[in-house]
């Protein structure tokens, strides 16, 4: 009908108007397929049927690249078995923290950096333990620990440039810690008080920092991945020497946004690091119920980007892989995928009891592989660390975290007006009206207003 209307119209150029015909939108796809098919049949016709040589006529010229023909009918891949070949896992330290003699270590850690990396991991462990307990005491509503994945998170953070923009999932607060987020900053967010940039609007653990180039956490999984691709593309357009770094888990890799992000970053050449924490579990769902292929790394190569599988319990390996990936991304203008194999030693969150879906033996075995202890063994072997320093660090950190939580708990909540600000840059009429109504409600019914929230 539109075509008819357009043809009858004297109002606009009808030749262009025909393109507005939605059926042509559908035709477009058909035409593409037809042109592909005709190319294929033309190429096939050009090749003698009896020919077996791989000359030019034995290839299919396709917009996506030249594809060779074969006379063998062969399917690729299939269900994996225990004996199927797997992408190997790069590591530089063995399970006890001993240096592996022939390991490739392009960016070895010097004493100062190694100690800094270890210190951050140990602080993260202490903070996680105290905050977990504080939540269980009812001090705030929710918490998530990084237990078992400290080397993945802090090791990769150390491999990034502080100017690289991080798009995290929710278990990567070690990156913030590494970059200088203070215990006060963490505590203010956990309590949702007025010193927190997010003004108490989000659940605990939704940290963010403009100064530290760390985009504010949002709960939906994998939504941050296309953002990272876009941000990386912006950096490329700017000619910047930075990358975007996106963190996510193997569970999030099943989301559509994961595939969107990798495909966009690869096709558009965005210098983005996709850092997957394959920690074995998405809440209760084990990895073998999350995917049937060889993990996540193989997907990177399928999307046309370099990919590596790394031992997520080896901080030095993660650090080296991240630095190398960053160099590739900037040199070649492409994304890189890192799959860090780790284990979520803690529960998914304070709302989860993981003993309901995994065995005690499994958890004990993995806790024995504590990546922080493993890295400490390497430091001690280098004579860069000792028991006394360990005690001092943990004791001092414990005091600092407890003090930060105490302090944050006494800070007033944001004012009522913060319920309505920041929805838009300027508050539109309906929010102004609702703010006034809410202020009246708060005054009429004071019990509805948290006691330490200013009614203004």
């Amino acid at each position: 009908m539109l075509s008819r209307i357009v043809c009858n119209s004297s109002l606009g150029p009808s030749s262009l108007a025909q393109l507005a015909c939605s059926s042509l939108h559908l035709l477009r796809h058909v035409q593409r397929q037809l042109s592909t098919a005709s190319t294929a049949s033309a190429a096939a016709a050009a090749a003698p049927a009896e020919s077996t040589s791989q000359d030019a006529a034995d290839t299919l010229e396709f917009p996506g690249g030249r594809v060779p023909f074969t006379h063998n009918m062969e399917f690729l891949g299939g269900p994996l078995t225990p004996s199927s070949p797997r992408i190997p896992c790069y590591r530089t330290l063995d399970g006890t923290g001993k240096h592996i003699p022939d390991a490739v270590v392009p960016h070895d850690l010097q004493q100062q950096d190694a100690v800094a990396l270890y210190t951050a991991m140990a602080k993260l462990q202490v903070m996680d333990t105290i905050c977990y307990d504080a939540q269980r005491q009812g001090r705030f509503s929710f918490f998530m620990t990084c237990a078992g994945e400290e080397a993945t998170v802090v090791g990769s953070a150390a491999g990034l440039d502080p100017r690289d923009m991080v798009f995290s999932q929710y278990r990567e607060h070690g990156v913030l810690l590494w970059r200088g987020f203070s215990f006060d900053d963490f505590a203010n967010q956990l309590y949702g008080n007025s010193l927190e940039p997010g003004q108490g609007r989000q659940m605990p653990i939704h940290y963010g920092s403009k100064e530290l180039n760390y985009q504010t956490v949002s709960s939906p999984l994998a939504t941050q991945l296309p953002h990272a691709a876009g941000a990386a593309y912006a950096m490329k357009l700017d000619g910047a020497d930075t990358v975007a770094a996106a963190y996510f888990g193997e569970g999030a890799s099943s989301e559509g946004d994961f595939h969107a992000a990798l495909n966009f970053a690869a096709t558009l050449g965005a210098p983005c690091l996709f850092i997957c924490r394959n920690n074995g579990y998405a809440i209760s769902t084990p990895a073998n119920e999350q995917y049937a292929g060889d993990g996540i790394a193989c997907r990177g190569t399928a999307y046309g980007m370099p990919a590596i599988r790394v031992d997520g319990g080896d901080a030095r390996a993660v650090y080296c892989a991240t630095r190398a990936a960053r160099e590739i991304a900037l040199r070649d203008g492409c994304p890189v995928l890192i799959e860090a194999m780790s284990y979520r030693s803690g529960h998914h969150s304070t709302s989860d009891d993981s003993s309901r879906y995994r065995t005690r033996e499994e958890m004990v075995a993995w806790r024995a592989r504590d990546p922080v202890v493993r890295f400490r063994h390497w430091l001690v072997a280098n004579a860069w660390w000792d028991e006394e320093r360990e005690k001092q660090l943990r004791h001092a950190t414990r005091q600092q975290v407890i003090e930060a939580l105490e302090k944050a708990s006494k800070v007033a909540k944001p004012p009522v007006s913060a319920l309505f600000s920041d929805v838009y840059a300027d508050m539109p009429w309906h929010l102004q009206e609702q703010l006034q109504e809410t202020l009246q409600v708060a005054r009429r019914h004071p019990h509805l207003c948290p006691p330490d929230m200013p009614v203004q």
Partner: protein
Amino acid sequence: MHTHVRQLQQVQQQHQQQGQQQRQQQHAVHSLSMSEAQAGDTKPLNLCNAVNEALHQAMDSNDKALVFGEDVAFGGVFRCTVGLLERYGRRCFNTPLCEQGIVGFGIGLATQGYTPIAEIQFADYIYPAFDQLVNEAAKYRYRSGGTFTAGGLTVRAPYGAVGHGGHYHSQSVESFFTHVPGLKVVVPSSPAQAKGLLLSCIQDPDPCIFFEPKMLYRTSVEEVPVGEYTIPLGQAQVLREGADITLIGWGAQVHVLAQAAQAVADADGISCEVLDLRTLLPWDVQAVTASVNKTGRLLVSHEAPLSSGFGAELVAEVSRRCFLRLEAPPVRVCGSDTPFPLVFEPLYLPGVERVVDAIRATVRF
């Protein structure tokens, strides 16, 4: 009464004769929108070319403006992005066929200070991007307390009936997004509006969704100001002044309302005030209540299904704010609560006849 019925029959006969050509003649009402044109030169453009000119204008004045989406590099399936690649190079680029990727990628660009202008090829295909729009773009500023924002993002999408689009090339999806705090939702009804409102969206500090009535891409032509030209968001426009009833619509539907207003003026002497809402979120409550307080009656009309459509919001607020001035129940004339149907389109759509019927019933209430 008898005279009235005869007049109605004449109107209906006239409508049947005009058939589907009515919609393309609706451009006549657009001359009113020129009242807002800023002083200076104008040139006749159809709505598609007006969008194209706005995109050129945006990319000329802002070297951070990027246009991307499916098939935009060669000019787009509707030709709205013609010439951008040639003039601005890699600032206009194709993306893989993935709506959630397009919007998510745009959000990422916006966080780095760019001005992404994303095209979703049809509004019917915006749903895969729903999560990115609702949970990400809309909440980006709020959840970070202004630390970060995706406000530079503008998403353009052609919407609405074209006569043969069926389920998936016809939908009006605006009310899904008017329910989302943090988004702005804008629908132009003429070429000048398309340029002025699109440029406002692109410059706006909040994420905007801009629904373009694809029926009007080529059937609506008017004089459009050249150069920089913006129309403020959040302001409705009175297309026709009247005393008996207020008719509110947006996009292509305002032309149906204008025709119905003319029909009842000619046949019944009913004086309709026609209001083009233009911005649905945030909408112009002052213009709407001022008009209804004057006329005492309200009719809202949209192509989208009746239930939970944006008309419900207008009717509810007008009922509350203008209750003592109302002389009849506010009425909605909308699409049926069905998927958009192909061969039933004339029955599904709130066409001139149904609007005329509803005007008469409301005025006689």
